[in-house]
């Protein structure tokens, strides 16, 4: 149990430290929206981690589906694509037991989301 927690904690740190910025960052109209989206992302990442621990495939599917549909609109195409890949992977499995098989898609998405919030913090530091 302890070992698993450590592994999880290490996994949750972003793999890269490159921040992701919205492609609409320079758009005046979008500033407030991007801020809103990124803060929502923070909440989603926490909820998704929990859902993963609980092997709640349905909840993860909902997250993936919604992110796939909305992230590009906020200028985060990479997040949208990764969410799409996670959703497809989820659709291919038939029981929560198979979740471990799609862990890399899951981690990829989480990683991108965390890098987006990093990106936003750096932006607002300027």
């Amino acid at each position: 149990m302890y070992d698993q927690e450590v592994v999880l904690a290490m996994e949750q740190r972003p793999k890269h430290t490159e921040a992701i910025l919205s492609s609409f960052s320079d758009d005046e109209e979008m500033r407030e929206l991007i801020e809103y989206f990124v803060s929502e992302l923070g909440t989603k990442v926490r909820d998704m981690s929990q859902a993963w621990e609980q092997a709640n495939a349905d909840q993860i599917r909902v997250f993936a589906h919604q992110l796939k549909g909305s992230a590009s609109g906020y200028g985060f195409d990479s997040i949208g694509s990764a969410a799409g890949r996670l959703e497809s992977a989820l659709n291919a499995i038939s029981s929560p037991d198979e979740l471990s098989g799609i862990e890399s898609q899951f981690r990829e998405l989480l990683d991108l989301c965390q890098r987006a919030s990093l990106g936003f913090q750096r932006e607002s530091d300027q």
Partner: protein
Amino acid sequence: MTDLQTPIEDSKPLVVLVDDSVVIHRLLTTRLRSESIELVCFESGEKALEFAQDHSPALFLLDIEMPGMDGYTMLRRIKDEPSLREVPIIMLSGLSSADDKVVAFDLGANDFITKPFEIAELRARIRAALRLHSLLQMLSQRAQVDGLTGLWNRAHFDEHWRSETSRISRHGGELSLALLDLDNFKSINDTYGHPAGDEVLAALAKLMGKTIRRSDLACRYGGEEFAIIMPETGPTEASAVCERIREGLEAMRWPRHPEREVTVSIGIAGSAGNAAIDPGKWIVQADKQLYAAKHGGRNRLSVINLDETHGPRLADAG
């Protein structure tokens, strides 16, 4: 000028978005600001339907995968609702298979945009759907309006009479019906030609339009026959309105035939709320009054107060 419910809406078209994701609401609210629309967002289909039934949306944007009422069910419900049936619908969904699109289009959707969408494309498709809505409105108006006089046509009269009589049978209230028939109209056509006849019809329609009140409905009922539905109006008040029309027409001078005046006979059947009479028989009573006016010498009114002749007590006695 009479309130013929001007076909072109001056206010911004109302667009109703139904999507369980608030993230989409916020994105579209900001991104569609540049469009001349009023966007209202709902997370649930039930609430959106309730709202739509009391307002006149110009367009629906529907997500498909939603908890509770999904997009397809919402689509069916919209098409089942007479007041919403003609409103264009754009599906906005993360589902992108051809099957999903076929289902949506066959259920009546006008367009299908997959998420994630390009905002410029969404804007363009919204504009296209709103153009469609405008055309549909004009068509529906045209189908209900008489080409020559600009008054509502007989079909619209029938519909409106049904709803007015239905309303007072539920809620009570005053209602009067006037039938107007031009005197010796055939001889105007025969003597001065059809263009002269058309001019007379158009002039009477214009006079009616100027004389009636906002709540009244003036219709072309037949070739040379007109009708006015007057809600919240008893027989006395209805007579006053019609007398102004009769007088106005009699006083008119006609450049094409200055030696020939034009007059109208009018039959009125009204109730202050106590009449027990079915809609069809009501029209018959107005028609009888019209006949009486013609046979009484033309260029006059004849009125019946239905409360006196068809009051509930009499109905019970029958």
